[in-house]
């Protein structure tokens, strides 16, 4: 029982970050019908800026949580600005063009990785802990910091879900995702919705990067691992499906957690790839995909 709880809690903590990351991917696919392989770069930029700014602000007299908060805001702002530039001069011209957007996003990955490497260097950066100590939760010990950060990730996911489900903007976004032409005929400004959707997706990626920074070794290639896992999550859940992205992410996190516990991390990684193959054979559009 103790082992099962440990695995479950570990899966929830890891999964919370995967959910944020994959929601961004699926949102972009939903409103623009493009697969953005450069999504990991927004995540990486935010993490890198937090890793650079947080220790710097600490030396300037900011206390721990405040330094982290300021650096998180700066990281998210920079990522969103990068997202706006990338959309304006790139993705806007390749909406509903899978081939063109694929080439564009792969090119962006190479460009950003090279630029980040030059700007930030290749060495690992470490963010000082925001919250210290461990907590006991239903008999399982967890680092308090992980718990807080997982809570933030879950809250961000809940806010997004609420926006999509209840607000006028969210409904417009869903309409564009379901049927672009019908949405146009209804007078929904699809171009503007696509831009705003892209920025929201970028923000989600940036939040995930900023959250992961204090519990991870931050390097310019940090996003690569999350891109693969996030992509697999949306494939399993169904490209464009928000509940699918959440389900896929939690599923992957559970396999990673259980596989790492009962076998080892390498086998857990292999199991994830085997799983995606099986899902694609049985349900080519993913578990909740219908597009």
């Amino acid at each position, binding site marked *: 029982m103790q082992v099962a709880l440990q695995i479950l809690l570990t899966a929830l903590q890891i999964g919370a970050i995967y959910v944020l990351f994959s929601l961004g991917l699926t949102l972009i696919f939903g409103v623009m019908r493009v697969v953005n392989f450069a999504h990991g770069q927004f995540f990486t930029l935010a993490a890198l800026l937090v890793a650079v700014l947080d220790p710097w602000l600490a030396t300037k007299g900011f206390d721990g949580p405040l330094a982290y908060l300021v650096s998180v805001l700066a990281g998210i702002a920079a990522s969103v600005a990068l997202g706006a530039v990338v959309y304006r001069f790139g993705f806007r011209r390749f909406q509903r063009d899978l081939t063109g957007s694929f080439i564009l996003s792969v090119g962006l990955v190479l460009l950003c990785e090279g630029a980040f490497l030059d700007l930030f260097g*290749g060495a690992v950066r470490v963010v000082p802990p925001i919250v210290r100590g461990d907590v006991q939760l239903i008999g399982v010990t967890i680092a308090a910091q992980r718990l807080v950060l997982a809570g933030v990730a879950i809250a961000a996911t809940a806010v997004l879900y609420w926006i999509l489900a209840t607000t006028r903007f969210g409904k417009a976004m869903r309409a564009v995702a379901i049927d672009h032409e019908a949405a146009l005929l209804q007078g929904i400004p699809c171009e503007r919705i696509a831009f705003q959707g892209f920025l929201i997706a970028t923000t989600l990626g940036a939040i995930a990067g900023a959250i992961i920074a204090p519990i991870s070794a931050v*390097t310019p290639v940090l996003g690569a691992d999350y891109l693969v896992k996030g992509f697999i999550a949306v494939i399993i859940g169904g490209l464009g499906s928000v509940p699918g992205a959440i389900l896929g992410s939690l599923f992957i996190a559970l396999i990673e957690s259980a596989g790492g516990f009962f076998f080892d991390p390498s086998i857990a990684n292999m199991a994830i790839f085997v799983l995606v193959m099986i899902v694609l054979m049985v349900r080519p559009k993913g578990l909740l995909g219908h597009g």
Partner: protein
Amino acid sequence: MSYLQRSIERGPLAFGLCALMVCVSPAVANETIKLGLSVPLSGAAANWGKGGEWLCKQAAQEIAKGGGVKVAGKVYDFECVAYDNKYNAADGTKVAQTLLTRDNVKFIGGSLGTAPVRALQSMSERDGVLLFTTAWGKAIKGPKFPLTFTQMNTVYEISKPLLGFVKQSNPNVKTVALLNPNDATGQDVEAADRANWEALGVKVVSSDWYERGTTEFQPIAAKIAALRPDAVDLGAAPPPDAGFVFKELKALSWNGVKVITVGSGAEGVLATGQDAADGTYMGAAMTFDSPATSAKQKSLNDGVKTATGESVNAIQIGFYDSVYALKAAMEKAQSVEPKQVAAALPTVTFDGFYGKSAFGGVAMYGSPQQILVPVIVSQLKGGKLAELQRIAPDEMKGR
């Protein structure tokens, strides 16, 4: 006045000007020997590569200032050229092609990572290029590879004395869990560590693998903690990864003996592991506050710290020693041909980072291709690295 007359009258003047130009022009520049480096310059092991590159350049500068490498009436300087192999075979192959085919280097001053080095070696031996490597696989050395030389202590030199020391200091250790990166480097370390732990009467309760670039160590830490081993040996894990594993283990209330067999960067372990890394034994790290530390070692350590933010470690030091080894061998062979230099290398001694050093290791590898430098057993204590024991290789005694 005819053109011929003018030429005759101005001839001596032109000759004088030319002679003056020759006299005042700088001395003829030394010839340059490029030393290629295949190292990780990004990712968790980036600091190893950056520090290695800095040390190679530093040794090259020192040699140039000291008058260069004097071979058959010519003077040569070294130039270090580094490319990022990202610690994997695919990028290692790209770097190998760039160095050997495009840059046409004849000497590899240092290479890091067994997988990328294997990719490089497959070309270097065939093309007659002399290769220095920090990779320690037994499979890459021996009479079949006459141009390959290992520039640092490998797990085969480190593991036995380190683990023996750990067991002696912690006689209650009866079980150990091993965790290594899932690549050629990790596999070599795992095999040597497993054999040495078992020889010491310690049971290996688990041996797991993870992919380099892994960002989440919580699941494997949960597995290891559940096994409750007396010791955890992270073998070839890069310092930041090792720190994270120890941090996760501490959060799960595990508190046993911590070992990183070929652990090299104390700062990297401390940065991610913080107080959870306290007490960790390391076999390839160096401390610089001991009275035995020379001024030269301190100065080189300061240089690497400025370049990478971390103290110099055994992996990086090999990049400094190889340059001096090459100088000594080239001057002994009076040749810059890689095959002749390789033949001379095992016969020379040179003044490296640790002092007088040489190449040997016939008994272990079948040919003298292993650098002979001391094994330093160290431990993290109160956020600092402390040297516990320094073991000089027996083979150096007669050199």
